[in-house]
């Protein structure tokens, strides 16, 4: 049968549209109804706004950095204090991006909205804890702002001692902020683990969960296990600064390398907190927009867990030159290579999923493609850094900068955007302009490569990172990079505009605009505040066989051959309000 025409005789299942009194966005009015909400969806939306603002701030700082580096002697900041300004800017760029944007971006913003809905649950296990973790995030953000307003922060986001114990910038404010943010992310992770463990509806076995849930689960494990160590490390750092406890500060017989161990025991797993949810999103997006069952579900699921656990064994590769013993160094290098295997598996599986699929190049799909391309580069260049001899040359050069931006920005940020574009109709019930979305994806892709490809060469040619001024021979590549950053910024702006315009003028989104089979598409968009009247019947999250394109309503609908319906298990297919959709 031709696309668009629905097979006759079989029953069409579509939840229709929500009434304002059910729509979680409108069911209760007033600012207070948002401030004190316990609805995971609203909390998710608040997170989304929060991290977007944080990203905006840190992004502007990034542009400032690039502009300054347009000239070898520095373009933006001038005078005696120029270098201090530059140091503060790159420090805040790093700190805000890491603690306020990347770590909470996908798990807290998208995860909060999606985890319960994908589970067919009414809410997360601990709604109050959930709200509390959001306000902890806000609190931590305020601390960062106050640090900025006080005497700034110039330690680099890693707070290495003894610099952080001797500098007179407001380290304590910033570390307290990071400490609080740590607890925010612990609570989110804890909440998700419990939710996924105890609140899955009947029939949703572990291997019937969408891969996004697997990724979130793996992420949460890391958040719960690693973040406390950051907490104690920062506490000790504060104590070191205030009363010189002599654990990290050589002035008092402490040892800076110990601080690096403590710090990276959290901060390397944190890298996987940032990238694992991105894997989850891409797994779902690729499968949905290729309208093909995900390839190697179990391998992808297991590899997420594998990455989460192996991620705890490799922190030392941030310290290869710091004077660790040779033995430790070599062990860490070996372990580092092991973690690259599961990542490779995922890439291959995504390709295999696209093979012989029915790909529709929607905006989310474009972002997913960009992700695979960029993340592959990021992952592969990791090999140069994991290899000891080459790392001796590349460590702390722009090669590293380029590498982790390919993973963090080309990976996490692009996946985050893909996810936002994918679930936007579900979150706000509006369709955005596809053309605009695709354009933004293209601009981001091009701008990003132009920004960071040159930095690989800069690095291998020996340009150290965190330099406010540099030798003239590096100028050309730096300028390329700066132009690229402008383009990248413009692309992100386009994305923002496209999404915001859709809120005003976008047309109403159907329940299932992409033809996805996971549960969140079985409730209306936007979902009612209670998500599901009853726990929905759980099918295979990647079985697209009974999803048909309904051309005249521009929506996908589930086709239910009559024989499949078992009366007592039949869910309510048409909410009471379904009339107004007809």
């Amino acid at each position, binding site marked *: 049968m031709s696309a668009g025409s629905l097979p006759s005789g079989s029953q069409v299942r579509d939840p229709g549209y929500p009434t304002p009194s059910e729509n979680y966005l409108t069911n209760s009015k007033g600012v207070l109804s948002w401030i004190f909400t*316990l609805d995971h969806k609203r909390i998710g939306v608040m997170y989304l706004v929060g991290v977007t603002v944080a990203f905006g701030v840190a992004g502007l700082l990034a542009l400032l950095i690039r502009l300054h580096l347009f000239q070898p002697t520095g373009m933006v900041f001038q005078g005696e204090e120029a270098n201090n300004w530059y140091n503060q800017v790159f420090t805040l760029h790093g700190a805000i991006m890491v603690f306020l944007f990347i770590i909470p971006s996908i798990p807290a913003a998208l995860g909060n909205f999606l985890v319960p809905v994908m589970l067919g*649950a*009414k*809410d*997360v*296990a*601990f*709604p*109050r*804890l959930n709200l*509390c973790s959001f306000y902890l995030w806000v609190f931590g953000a305020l601390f960062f702002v106050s640090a900025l307003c006080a005497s700034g922060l110039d330690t680099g986001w890693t707070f290495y001692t003894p610099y952080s114990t001797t500098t007179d910038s407001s380290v304590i404010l910033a570390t307290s902020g990071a400490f609080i943010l740590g607890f925010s992310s*612990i*609570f989110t992770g*804890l*909440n998700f*683990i*419990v*939710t996924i*463990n*105890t*609140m899955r509806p009947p029939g949703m076995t572990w291997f019937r969960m969408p891969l996004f849930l697997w990724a979130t689960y793996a992420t949460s494990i890391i958040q*719960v*296990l*690693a*973040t*406390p*160590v950051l*907490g*104690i*490390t920062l*506490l*000790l750092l504060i*104590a070191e600064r*205030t*009363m*010189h*406890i*002599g*654990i990290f500060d050589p002035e*008092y*017989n*402490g*040892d800076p390398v*110990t601080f690096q161990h*403590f710090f990276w025991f959290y901060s390397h797993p944190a890298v996987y907190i940032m990238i694992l949810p991105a894997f989850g999103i891409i797994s779902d997006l690729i499968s949905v927009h290729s309208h093909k069952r995900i390839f190697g579900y179990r391998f992808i699921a297991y590899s997420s867990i594998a990455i989460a656990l192996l991620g705890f064994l490799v922190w030392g590769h941030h310290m290869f030159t710091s004077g660790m013993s040779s033995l430790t160094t070599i062990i860490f290098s070996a372990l580092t290579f092991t973690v690259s295997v599961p990542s490779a598996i995922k890439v291959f599986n995504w390709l295999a999923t696209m093979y012989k699929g029915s790909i529709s190049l929607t905006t989310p799909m474009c972002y997913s493609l960009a992700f695979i391309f960029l993340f592959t580069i990021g992952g592969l260049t990791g090999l140069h850094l994991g290899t000891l001899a080459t790392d001796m040359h590349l460590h702390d050069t722009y090669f590293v900068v380029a590498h982790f931006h390919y993973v963090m920005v080309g990976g996490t940020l692009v996946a985050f955007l893909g996810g936002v574009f994918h679930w936007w109709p579900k979150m706000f019930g509006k369709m955005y302009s596809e053309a605009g979305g695709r354009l933004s994806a293209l601009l981001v892709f091009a701008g990003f490569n132009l920004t960071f490809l040159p930095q690989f060469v800069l690095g291998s040619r020996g340009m150290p990172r965190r330099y406010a001024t540099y030798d003239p021979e590096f100028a050309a590549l730096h300028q390329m990079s700066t132009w690229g950053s402008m383009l990248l910024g413009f692309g992100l702006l386009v994305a923002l505009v496209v999404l915001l315009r859709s809120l005003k003028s976008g047309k109403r989104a159907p329940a299932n605009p992409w033809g996805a089979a996971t549960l969140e598409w079985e409730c209306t968009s936007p979902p009612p505040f*209670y998500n599901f*009247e009853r726990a929905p019947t759980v099918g295979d999250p990647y079985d697209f066989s009974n999803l048909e394109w309904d051309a005249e309503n521009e929506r996908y609908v589930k086709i239910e051959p009559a024989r499949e319906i078992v009366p007592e298990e039949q869910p309510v297919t048409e909410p009471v309000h379904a009339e107004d959709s007809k």
Partner: protein
Amino acid sequence: MSTIEASPEVGHDEHGHDHDHPPFLAHHFDTPEQQFDSGKLGIWLFLVTEVLFFSGMFCAYAIFRALRPEVFEGCSQFLNTKLGAINTGVLLFSSLTMAWAVRCSQLEQHKGLVGTLAATLSCAMIFLGVKAIEYSHKFGMGLLPAGLFFYDPSNPHPTDHPPYLLYICAPFALALVGVLIWLVVSAASGNKFQFAVAKPLSVVCLCFFVGVGLGTVLESGEDSADHVDVHADPNGLATASVMLEAEKSAEAEAAPAIAASGAMVPVEESVLEILATDPTNVGVVSGLNALEQQTAAAGTSTVTGDGEILGAVTTTEVDVMTPTTAGVFFSIYYCMTGIHAIHILAGIGVLVWLLVRAVRKDFNRQYFGPVDYVGLYWHLVDLIWIYLFPLLYLIR
């Protein structure tokens, strides 16, 4: 935050669609058991985070003890084993009562629940009282983290320091007064519920000062007594010089030092002082060894052997009781016990909340989660102390 996890009565009852929900069952759970299991898993995960949180300090402890065993031995002599042991006992007992409280809540024995919770709280307060004595005593002696360390062997008990004990006790005294007033008022106004809450709480607050008293007796009570007999018998020094040979090997790897041999005499006295202040400590001699070592070193040359290898000749000192060496031990001591004490305070907060709800008879066999969760948290705090006590107090 175990309160948050535990608190089940999440609103949302405006959802017309949870009819069969008992009041204590949150709308998004289907059964009390599902709610209980979620909370249980949640608190276990929280305990996991606590374990890793403390792991950082245990790691620091391990590193520095391995690096400078002599410092840890020397300094650990300043901790009063008796007080530590008492506190251990108190915490263990509180664990017992806490576990008992869980049992009571499961069997809906409301009176027993209130009693056991109050007992647990009282133990917590006693623990803090004893700690207050330990801390104020060390503050007074200047046994502080490296940056603030001002311990002076020639004058280990300066009298001009601020009244730390007072500072620590003040808030608890305020709490006691407040509770007593509340007790009286509620009794007068005949508010049964408030009275039932205030009664146990006033006992609890009193217990802090019981702890303080206990500590004072053990700490100062024996001070005067031992001053006498220590001065009477000079064995302290004799044994020390004997032990010295044994200790030599331990100190061998430390580089030779320049030390003021003039400091000899006062330091000796100081060791006797130590002996006097902490008679319960067994290994005072090693405190002396450090001193003997120092004076021995004072004779040796100031140039070290391994200069060529290191690229520059440097000097160091082995006197254990200086800010940068002893400081590390006391830093770790205060970090570990301090953060543990903060956990006790948090526990007290949560337990009070439980006490109120227990008086309100909130808990039943279907819904005893909060008690169970707080119990788990309390046992973890106990668990950590079980390791802290030998690691800090019992080093030889």
